[in-house]
């Protein structure tokens, strides 16, 4: 299965988008704060913007302009949503991890579950 390579940071950003898009809050500042809060890393805005750009290029997220707010000086947000492809990619990664974890926890099951992730 040929998938675009997704870096670890990109994966975190993509996951954050997936979480925040539910409240229509998946935009630069909110994503940055969410990641800082969840991971404790010191992330800067430019990094998030760059990652989102790369994700959009890869077709994992798409974006549109949202409503303007006063504290942004009347500027609009760019709101991101995860595309179907992005969602599949996240699932694939998750499945690969689950598969490895399950083998790590139940070494005997590993053979029976071989083609579990081929879907």
């Amino acid at each position, binding site marked *: 299965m040929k998938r675009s390579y997704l870096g670890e940071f990109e994966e975190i950003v993509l996951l954050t988008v997936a979480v925040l898009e539910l409240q229509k809050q998946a935009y*630069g500042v909110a994503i*940055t704060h969410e990641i800082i809060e969840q991971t404790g890393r010191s992330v*800067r*805005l430019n*990094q998030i*913007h*760059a990652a989102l750009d790369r994700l959009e290029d890869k077709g994992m997220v798409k974006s549109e302009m949202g409503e*303007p707010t006063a504290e*942004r000086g009347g*500027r609009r947000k760019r709101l991101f949503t995860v595309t179907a492809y992005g969602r599949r990619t996240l699932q694939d990664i998750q499945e690969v991890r689950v598969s490895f974890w399950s083998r790590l926890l139940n070494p005997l099951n590993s053979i029976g579950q071989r083609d579990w992730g081929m879907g």
Partner: protein
Amino acid sequence: MRHSPPQLADKLLRFFLADDRREEVLGDLHEEFHWQVRRVGERRARWRYWGDVLRFLKPQFTTQRTPNHSRKPSNITMIRNYLKVAFRNLARHKGYSAINVGGLAVGMAVAMLIGLWIYDELSYNTYHKHYARIAQVMQHQTSNGHVGSQNAIPAPLEDELRAKYGDNFKHLAMATWQGDRILSYGDKKITRSGNYMGVEMPDILSLQMMKGSRNGLKEPNSILLSASTAQSLFGDANPMGKLINIDGKADVQVTGVYEDLPFNTELHELTFIAPWKLFVATQPWVKRALDKREWGNNSFQLFVQIADNTTMETVSTRIRNAKLANVPAEDKKYKAEIFLHPMSDWRLHSNWDEGVQTGGYIQYVQLFAIVGVFVLLLACINFMNLSTARSEKRAKEVGIRKAVGSVRSQLINQFFSESFLVVVFAFGVAILLILALLPWFNEVADKRIVFPWTNVPFWLASLTFIVVTGLLAGSYPAFYLSSFQPIKVLKGTFKVGGLAAVPRKVLVVVQFTVSITLIIGTSIVYQQIQHTKNRPLGYDSNGLVMMQMLSPAFYGKYDVLKTDLKNAGVIQEMAESSSPLTGVWSNNGGFSWPGKAPSLDSDFSTIWVTHDFGKTVGWQFKEGRDFSRKFTTDSSAIIINEAAVKFMGIEHPLGTVVKWGDDSDTNKPEYFTIVGVIKDVLAESPYEPVKQAIYFLDYENVNWIMLKLNPARSASQSIATIESIFKKDVPSAPFNYKFADLEFGKKFASEERIGKLAGGFAILAIFISCLGLFGLSSFTAEQRTKEIGVRKVLGASVLNLWSLLSKDFVVLVIIACLIASPIAYYYLSEWLSDYDYRTELSWWVFAGSGAGALIITLLTVSFQTIKAALVNPVKSLRSE
């Protein structure tokens, strides 16, 4: 917000960031700043802000966001796609494309030709710089209860206007009548049309002087020549200062050469201007009219340029009584009313009825404008019809396009780009057509229109034209086709038919209504021309030659010429008269006879002829006899026409004594006896009744020589012999002759022109309609292929099928006939009512036009229907 982030940082960012990133990045940064202010205070937030900003100054943020596949493609790409699809569609259906482009091209060519024609008509006379301020002085006069309007005015009017109304005018110029005159320089003699005009005329006309100046008419013995006249008299030699002779009467010096007046000016045949003063000096009667202030002698023209600060209407009102105030008491009853006829109206508004302007040529301009619009409409209807007829085929395409995400506006755009493509193609073809047709058109319409390649307004108009036609032709398919529901179309339950065909049928009816109206109109115009041409002339115009006696050298040669010509055997008879056979040059009043009603203004056409005139032209006598040399008393004999008998109200005209003049006049009245009554001789307008006329016997007051050729000889040989005899007997005058029948034919020129143009347009309209019908019938035939196959299998004959398929179209054409007939009837009776002598609107013209249209329709449709009916049913049914 109390706090605001560092402005310099913002500026920096704005400068470097790509345009499409600025908003979101700055927005995020500001939001972050305010959050940081709350968290760590403003000072540290500002530092942080600077840090963030600097981090954004990287190449990846200074370039535009890369285009994404999920985003909307740009307009250019879409248009390119539309055009590509349009091209493919055109190329795949070559026949229909040809019909579409061809029909539209013909329609556009017609509309553009008419446009060029109208432009030419509207720009008539605009060559003159003071176009808007030039006018001819005219007058209304009331006689026998009718108001007549004329441009002939009395001689003292100019002085009167200058003296009492001078402020209103910038220039005034008297003139006589434009006509052919002989100009000679050495041995060279040419006949040219020109006029004697006042000193200020060149200024009024703003003549472009190539040599000399506009005041070249100051000296009485001077002349201004047009460039072409100068060229034919002097070749390349300098004409300035050369002495030439006019009509063998006066020697004049060339004082200027002006650029030829362009063809679309009223005075384009004015090829020389001699001074009015010279005319006065050489014509005693003119001098008398001026010196004695003869207000009753309306024999001259007066042109003016009004002052800059006034209007035509104001001046017209002010000078109204300029003549009435001066005429003798007994002439007050004519209620002479002087007015201005502006140059801008000369061409298009020159008809008066009872003193009220009633249009003129403008009616034809309007008529053809309407025709042009309609022909274009026909072509557009074709396009719309063919597109909608094809809709069933294209419905699938529309369905698929919609299913894959095309929105309606995109489909509308697609159909519009298709129609624009066709229109642009058609425009190209139309220009080629115009280039090919222009010589023919110029000849028929008597124009000198050139294709306006460098005329910016023309191209702007063409662009508008393309846009309007594109929108008009494309609107129906664009909005109709794009409204299809993809589900229905793709499921196969979609059928165009029933109600959907109604607009198409309406359009066909409109098309044929226009075409049939044009056919009926053309037929009636030709019928009217023919009817008038067949009107009894009252003389025999066969082999009748007329020659104007332009030079004094002609006079006194009557007997010599007659003997020589008769001896040569080329003529049967010769005579002279004061007027040509195709016009009356003189009208006079002041006649009275026993039993005349005192209130009647006795106005007659007066014609002076020699003894043999009746024999030469073939007068037909109702009563009495011709002039004869046997009666010496015939010098006081007159012959009158039937109209005169009716006008005078006398029962026994023969022997009636007519008195001309009044006892109070300085000249003694003259008495004449009627010796003969002839059938009316048609000399003036062939559409109007012949005016009462009196023929006198005279050998002095004559201007024309009439020759009746010997019918036993060929005309061309006779003319050659006649020329040699004239060269011998009248060596100083050039030999110019006119055939009476051809001159008479010229009276129909304008009607024939209209007839030819209307005929041409009618043919084109029919052609366009048939083109559309042809395409349409092929579609219906194609749509019903299966049905025809099944019918054939069940035993239908080819005739059955043919009538089945043709019936629909025939019904439409019959409806069109029913609509067209009353419309045509209404407009044609309006048109005919302008003519006193007119043809009847007979029902068979209408029936014939309808039948003609029906036959053409059947022929057009049959090609397709018979083809469809002949197809082997096996072929058409095999596919299922």
